[in-house]
């Protein structure tokens, strides 16, 4: 019994590492230096600039403009953590490799997590660049910032958002593609997660969506870290973030099993 568990863990670990290597190499080949430049350098600058100018034009106070700048700096990680991760299964379907992958006895969780793990680095890099822009170009005040809390908040937001991307990715197992939903959730955070204005300004019927997406809690934790809030103030949002991230990840695993079973039953794995 104990031997079986150890063997399963070892095989899961091998699948995870193999998948991580494959995922990162594939991404590095695809994301050549100009793609990196676009994703890490240009996209955050463009998005932050758009909303910063918009908030200035709408006569927002300097504090509120800073709120908008920080919000967008963090939200840009969605390009990597949500969009890229959500398209993992759809890409396999496009390339015709999904049926082969699902024929292997390897743990699905290990395979998918391995492919997504690399995006933790990418999404953290994107948001860090966004925060550097916030400081150097948009005058956000970091004088009171607690950098340790900020780093932890960024990392946990990235991991939780990748779980959210995985949840969307499961749709690609059964439906033709997850790309459409991935596109929607790439940008919907701008509206519902408190990126540009507090969620209290949203209509009540929209707010439940805010509480499901981990970015909402991540943003609170990041803003409090920059404002120099104490351990308990930041910690409560990090706790929410971890709980939400785990819930979303569990849901992703459950849906992977469900959609894989449905796809096998209906023979839809290769339908595209």
């Amino acid at each position: 019994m104990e031997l079986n568990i150890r063997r399963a863990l070892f095989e899961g670990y091998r699948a995870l590492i193999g998948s991580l290597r494959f995922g990162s190499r594939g991404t590095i080949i695809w994301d050549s230096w100009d793609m990196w430049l676009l994703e890490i350098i240009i996209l955050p600058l463009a998005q932050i600039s758009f909303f910063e100018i918009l908030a200035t034009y709408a006569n927002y106070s300097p504090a509120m403009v800073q709120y908008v700048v920080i919000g967008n700096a963090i939200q840009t990680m969605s390009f990597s953590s949500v969009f890229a991760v959500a398209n993992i299964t759809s890409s396999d379907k496009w390339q015709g490799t999904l049926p082969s992958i699902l024929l292997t006895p390897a743990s699905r969780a290990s395979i998918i997590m391995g492919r997504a793990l690399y995006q933790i680095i990418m999404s953290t890099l994107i948001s860090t660049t966004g925060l550097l822009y916030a400081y150097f170009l948009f005058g956000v005040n970091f004088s009171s910032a607690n950098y340790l809390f900020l780093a932890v908040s960024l990392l946990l937001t990235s991991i939780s958002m990748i779980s959210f991307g995985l949840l969307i990715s499961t749709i690609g197992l059964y439906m033709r593609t997850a790309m459409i939903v991935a596109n929607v959730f790439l940008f919907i955070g701008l509206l519902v997660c408190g990126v540009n204005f507090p969620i209290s300004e949203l209509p009540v019927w929209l707010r439940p969506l805010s509480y499901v997406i981990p970015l909402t809690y991540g943003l609170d934790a990041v803003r409090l870290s920059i404002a120099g809030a104490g351990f308990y103030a930041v910690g409560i949002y990090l706790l929410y973030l971890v709980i939400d991230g785990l819930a979303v990840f569990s849901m992703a695993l459950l849906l992977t099993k469900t959609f894989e079973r449905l796809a096998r039953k209906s023979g839809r794995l290769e339908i595209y």
Partner: protein
Amino acid sequence: MSSGEVSRVQVVKASMILTARNFFADPQWVIPSIIAPFVFTLVSLFLFSHVNGPILLYAVLGGGMMGMWGTTVYGSGSSIGFDRWNGTLECTLSAPTPLMWIVLGRVIWNTLEGSINALFILAIGFLWFRVGIGIADPGLFAISTIITFLSLSAFGLLLANIVVLSRKGGFLTNGIEIPVYIATGTMFPIGLLPFFVQGFSFALGPTWGIDAIRKAAIAGYTGLPVSIYVDLLVTVLATVVYMALSAYFFTKVEKIAKRNGTLGDY
């Protein structure tokens, strides 16, 4: 009119109809190209909701413009990209008709698709944010919209050149989406932009087009310090320049693509 010209018009028409049929067969694919402008406009409406004056109509018109920009940019990136994906790019380039006319038909439909976003935004602005949709001069508004539409299509055609030679063209055109929203003053006056960006803004026909649309729609709107007719003239001139540049670059790019023989590389 020579038979060659008729043939090219027919190609543009056929290409446009085929793209339209593809759209109606699977309309969900409009979402990736309009979701960004749609959400950006909704956020703008929230941010502007406490500001008095005709700012909401200003934002709704800007949102419509962003929708057309979004589908133009996305469509230009994907029109050749999908050919490459599906393995039909070689056949398309082997046809006796220059590629430019085939792409033009696709780009015109893609820009037209953007008006779907404009309708959504208009409906949300009217029903949710109670935006008054009174147009000051409907005739000039219609003319301005059509000329701006043509200018966007011509710009999309120019962009499509990038994609013929590069497998990454689709991603690059996605990357310029937000910068063009900023540069053309879709949601705020270009006077708020840094000086070096303003030069780029003035070189874009749609910057003048959106200014004309707003002048025709909003009574008392000042915008750029020129009359609406100057706006329209510059938009037309920019469209002609884009078309001429597109014709030149498409000829060059087609030759390079055929000489290198790397069209199918993906």
